């Protein structure tokens, strides 16, 4: 098992507890990032989403119908960011229509199953859709899922890492079942997007940047101290 970490990345964290998350008014975040999750059917896209948004794993997850939607508020470098995640169906019958969800994604999680080589072989087709239908600035994260099934491994870490490097993708292996490295995938994607905003590589005014800046509305939550980030108050 290997971990794709980078110590130079800025600190990140999630809301400390569910309770603090629900107490927050829905407008208490600075940005919205749009994500899409793509890849063959059955690779575990929906399980990754559910693990990330609800810390739940379903052993017998049925095929997604069209698209599923999930959100979670995270924190990157002290800024709260709402992730808006579109989990697309991998079944061929939905492919034509799920293509419309790529538009305006700031982050794309491209998933294959480390125990099923065919799902890895199809990556080039998923990658070309992702490249053609998103912006040049979209962060693409390759995820080898089902890391818990090491004994059935069909694609080596090295091979996939090489594919990722050749195509300029971020890469890690994760398990939606145990939850291992699931947070990392979602949070690191957000960090990179955030860095791109900070250094101006991502133009927020461009249509379809996949990022929306929110103006915090303090008056909706009297418990929150007014601070300088609330310029409208």
């Amino acid at each position: 098992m290997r971990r794709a970490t980078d110590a130079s990345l800025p600190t990140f964290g999630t809301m400390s507890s569910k309770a603090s998350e629900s107490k927050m008014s829905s407008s208490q975040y600075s940005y919205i990032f749009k994500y899409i999750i793509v890849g063959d059917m059955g690779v575990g896209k929906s399980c990754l989403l559910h693990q990330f948004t609800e810390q739940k794993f379903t052993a017998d997850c049925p095929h997604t119908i069209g698209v599923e939607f999930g959100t979670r508020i995270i924190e990157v470098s002290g800024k709260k960011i709402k992730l808006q995640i579109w989990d697309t169906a991998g079944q061929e019958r939905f492919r034509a229509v799920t293509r419309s969800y790529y538009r305006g994604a700031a982050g794309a999680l491209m998933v294959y199953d480390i125990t099923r080589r065919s799902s890895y072989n199809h990556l080039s087709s998923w990658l070309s859709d992702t490249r053609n239908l998103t912006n040049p600035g979209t962060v693409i994260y390759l995820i080898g899922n089902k890391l818990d099934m090491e004994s059935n491994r069909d694609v080596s870490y090295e091979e996939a890492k090489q594919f990722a490097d050749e195509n300029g993708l971020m890469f890690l292996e994760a398990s939606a079942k145990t939850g291992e490295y699931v947070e990392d995938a979602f949070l690191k994607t957000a960090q990179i997007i955030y860095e791109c905003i900070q250094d101006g590589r991502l133009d927020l005014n461009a249509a379809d940047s996949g990022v929306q800046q929110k103006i915090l509305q303090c008056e909706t939550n009297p418990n929150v101290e007014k601070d300088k980030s609330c310029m409208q108050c």
Partner: protein
Amino acid sequence: MDVEDVLSDVVSMEDLKKFEKEYHNQLTTGTVSQETKFHYAWCLVRSNYPADIRKGLILLEQLIKHEANDDDAKRNYLYYLALGNSRIKEYSTALQFIKAFLHMQPENMQAQNLLVTIQKKMESDAHKGMAVAGALALGLSAIVGIGFALSKNLKK
């Protein structure tokens, strides 16, 4: 872009036009494939216009009748019938469709989520309805008040 749930997801004009064209092309040349019909219906039920949504629902009902023996396909159509109906506020019909789905596959989280979303929407719309009724009543009493004041003035 601040989408809250699957019900607030709106089709792009570009997509709607594209799949509409495909559908009409097939209509004029002969038979429409189930696939094309489904793609078009999927776009229609996510439109902002109720007339489009209703058209999409008709197509979905045709599809579901045609593929009544394919459980997988049937569930897909039931899901979008529920989604489309709730987008035109036909909540009780929407609930019937999503419950029919859950009868076939009770543990399906996506369908459970849609059920909860529809129920929430129903509730918030009921509240809005009450607020509107309240505002109307206020407006009415204001008009009556003005009328009353005017008539008093005239009598002087």
